[in-house]
């Protein structure tokens, strides 16, 4: 088979489609809870990536000579790609909002603030099918773009950049944003955008899909730190945490320990206490029936309240649990406090 210029141009479309499909397979095999809004957003993201990848693949397989007779199909597939790319941008933007603020209510409240850009982003490609205001096929059956398309492209990326700016503003205020790394997604997309702009070859989808896959891998790796029975962090996370405590990143200041009388009631216990655990604290399963909640706060009032709440919720669930707590003295080294008070069986 001769390799020609058309095929080289379309390699990224093939690769994008393959990556998108494999990403969906990962999601299907490993997503444990579709109730998690983050999972839903990522599924939307990857579905949009698939649509754009597969549409691009189909388009690239259509021989150029047939564009004339299959003009409407081609334009429809082009529209699908554009809509899918735009959906990806919108989903990314709201994913950023959600991950930053962890509030579905907040995203809903701000929804209408962004709905006009969304309408523009999604409907213009549809409008293009009938009006050719963004792109069209010239008399040589080659794809051409109008100046409006360039403005439209800039607008799309401004939308994404606004999301990144929001993230940066938040990160300067909240140090707990450490787990969400937007650059894993944005850098590949920026590479794709620049390469497409300067070389004329379509690379956006390839790099975009790399970005989405990176994001998924980030989510999946975080899931690797989770205990599947309780949903809390596991001992792998504890080891990572010790590193953060030792290097001063995490100022461990209080530890509340829960010891279940019945090790087999882990899931029931976790479900009972989940609603009273603060978002600012991490809860880790360190043994069969033993958990700790850790915090950078040494406030004894908070420790007292949480201990009371856990004991109360466990009692309501009919579970017997022993709750102990300790706060670090201000002169004590956090790493020593960690070692002395979080004992795990080897």
């Amino acid at each position, binding site marked *: 088979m001769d390799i020609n210029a058309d095929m080289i141009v379309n390699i990224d479309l093939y690769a994008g489609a393959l990556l998108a499909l494999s990403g969906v397979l990962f999601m299907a095999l490993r997503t444990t809870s579709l109730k998690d809004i983050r999972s839903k957003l990522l599924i939307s993201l990857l579905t949009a990536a698939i649509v754009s990848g597969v549409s691009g693949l189909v388009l690239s397989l259509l021989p150029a000579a047939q564009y004339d007779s299959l003009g409407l199909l081609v334009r429809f597939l082009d529209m699908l790609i554009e809509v899918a790319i735009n959906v990806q941008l919108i989903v990314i933007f709201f994913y950023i909002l959600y991950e930053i603020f962890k509030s579905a*209510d*907040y995203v809903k409240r701000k929804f209408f603030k962004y709905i006009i850009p969304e309408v523009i982003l999604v409907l213009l490609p549809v409008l293009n099918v009938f009006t050719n205001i963004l792109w069209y096929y010239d008399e040589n059956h080659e794809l051409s773009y109008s100046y409006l398309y360039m403005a439209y492209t800039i607008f799309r990326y401004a939308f994404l950049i606004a999301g990144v700016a929001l993230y940066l503003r938040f990160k300067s205020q909240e140090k707990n944003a450490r787990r969400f790394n937007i650059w894993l997604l944005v850098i590949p997309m920026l590479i794709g955008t620049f390469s497409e702009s300067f070389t004329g070859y379509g690379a956006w989808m390839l790099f975009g899909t790399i970005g989405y896959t990176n994001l998924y891998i980030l989510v999946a790796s975080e899931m690797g730190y989770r205990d599947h029975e309780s949903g809390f962090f596991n001992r792998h996370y504890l080891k990572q945490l010790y590193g953060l405590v030792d290097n001063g990143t995490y100022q461990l200041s209080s530890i509340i320990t829960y010891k279940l009388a019945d090790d087999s009631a882990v899931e029931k216990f976790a479900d009972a206490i989940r609603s009273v655990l*603060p978002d600012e604290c991490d809860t880790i399963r360190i043994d069969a029936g033993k958990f700790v909640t850790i915090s950078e*706060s040494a*406030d*004894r009032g*908070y420790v007292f309240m949480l201990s009371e709440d856990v004991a109360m919720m466990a009692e309501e669930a009919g579970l017997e649990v022993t709750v102990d707590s300790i706060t670090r003295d201000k002169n004590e080294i956090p790493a020593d406090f960690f070692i002395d008070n979080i004992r795990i069986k080897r």
Partner: protein
Amino acid sequence: MKIIEITKENAEDFQDFLGEDLVADMSRTFFNGLAATDDSGTCHGVLVYELLGVDSDDDTSSRIRLIAGDDEEIKASLQDEYRKAASEADVGKSFFETSESEVASFFEKLGFSKSSGESMELTITVSELEKLPIKRDVKLPDYIQSLADVSVIQYRNFVKKALIKGTKGAVEDLAYLPLSWFKREVSSCSVSDDKIDGVLLIRETPSGELHPLLYTAYGPDFVKNLSLILINSVNYALENYPPDTKVVIYRHDKKVLMLVHKLLAGYKGSEIYMGTREE
């Protein structure tokens, strides 16, 4: 004459000295009291103090809320017992505020410094809330609610969050007070995803005063929510309390001072005497 401890169980016995508001305060975790009684059990003097900084890494200090007695000798005895109790509690510093010059002079004789200035407490009336520079006629969104509409768990989860972030307002024992301590109808909150993310906690004392004690919010909309929460509480107070109801604001830190100055420009606390002593 013997000195006994005032507890929540016996506080009502000393109501003549304490007043109904302090009687209620004696059930609070960091409030302590001493009473000088004779053999027949008649009270001749009381001293009430509040410990501050017990639950944090800060040095513990003590705010003497009240000292009263039939004569100087009784008050001195109460002070001696207080010093012992303060020592046991690792109090580093004691301080007082009083409007009475004689009381200030009494403290000065016991080693306290003495100066005069504006009280940290600012008292206004409910009718004066109308003058606040806020848009009271704005339509409040559904997520701004009265504290009467939230559950105890929601409230406790918010308090835990506030304590983790180091916010207690004017309530040193916030962790130990039940939701019912505050007047739920006039207190307001903002709720997002079923979680409280902003509050204005107000206590209605037994004598009928309103004491705003905690005003804080978190999240991306915290500035807007703070305004809306305040509007909700102010409107409720104006509609449901007599215009001459006292509202006592304790300007316990610089942030509150600046906020009150912004909202109630021109209002000043009364002139009082104050002093401190290292223990």
